[in-house]
């Protein structure tokens, strides 16, 4: 059974804290993604990675960074958390295919509240 696991389901952090959201996949997928989901704005891509140590900015990278030291793990870092980063964060992985990336699988999500 395919699995993408996010380290926390719920997280409460203070403004200004450095926050790490961890994501691990067991499918040997090359591609990994971080999205955030907000009411009325839908799902938006923050960053993605198509290989170890490689990263690409998505649509809303400001205020975030990422780390991919191992193929199975993709970390999202909030350097200095702010209240406007309160959101649902979703990690996904997929494999490259002949006609673009294949089926994507998502983790259970992390609801982050910054107070």
């Amino acid at each position: 059974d395919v699995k993408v696991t996010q380290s926390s389901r719920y997280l409460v952090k203070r403004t200004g804290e450095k926050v790490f959201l961890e994501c691990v996949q067991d499918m040997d997928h090359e591609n990994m993604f971080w999205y955030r989901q907000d009411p009325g704005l839908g799902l938006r891509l923050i960053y993605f990675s198509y290989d170890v140590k490689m990263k690409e900015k998505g649509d809303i990278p400001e205020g975030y960074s990422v780390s991919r030291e191992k193929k199975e793990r993709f970390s999202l870092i909030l350097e200095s958390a702010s209240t406007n980063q309160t959101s649902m964060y979703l990690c996904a992985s997929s494999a490259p295919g002949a006609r673009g990336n294949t089926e994507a699988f998502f983790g259970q999500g992390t609801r982050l509240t910054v107070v």
Partner: protein
Amino acid sequence: GIQVEQSPPDLILQEGANSTLRCNFSDSVNNLQWFHQNPWGQLINLFYIPSGTKQNGRLSATTVATERYSLLYISSSQTTDSGVYFCAVLGQGAQKLVFGQGTRLTINP
């Protein structure tokens, strides 16, 4: 970039009814997926269907790539089918999935 539009935005039905959810997209795609977001927020894979028709129990999906739309059918709805259904597409040459705004389905007992 590619645009994805889902309709209707909200759908309220009685248990046992059938429903059809639609996803329109603005350009050719290499990949199309349907997801159900459960009450805890997780996106559950329903179908990976860039073209053609697939069925899984009471659910089926059809994608007509040449006409740029996909349909998700739910038959004999149950209260556990409630939630938000998302369509997501991968445009040609793209690396990221683009999501529609979702259809919120409510099944009343």
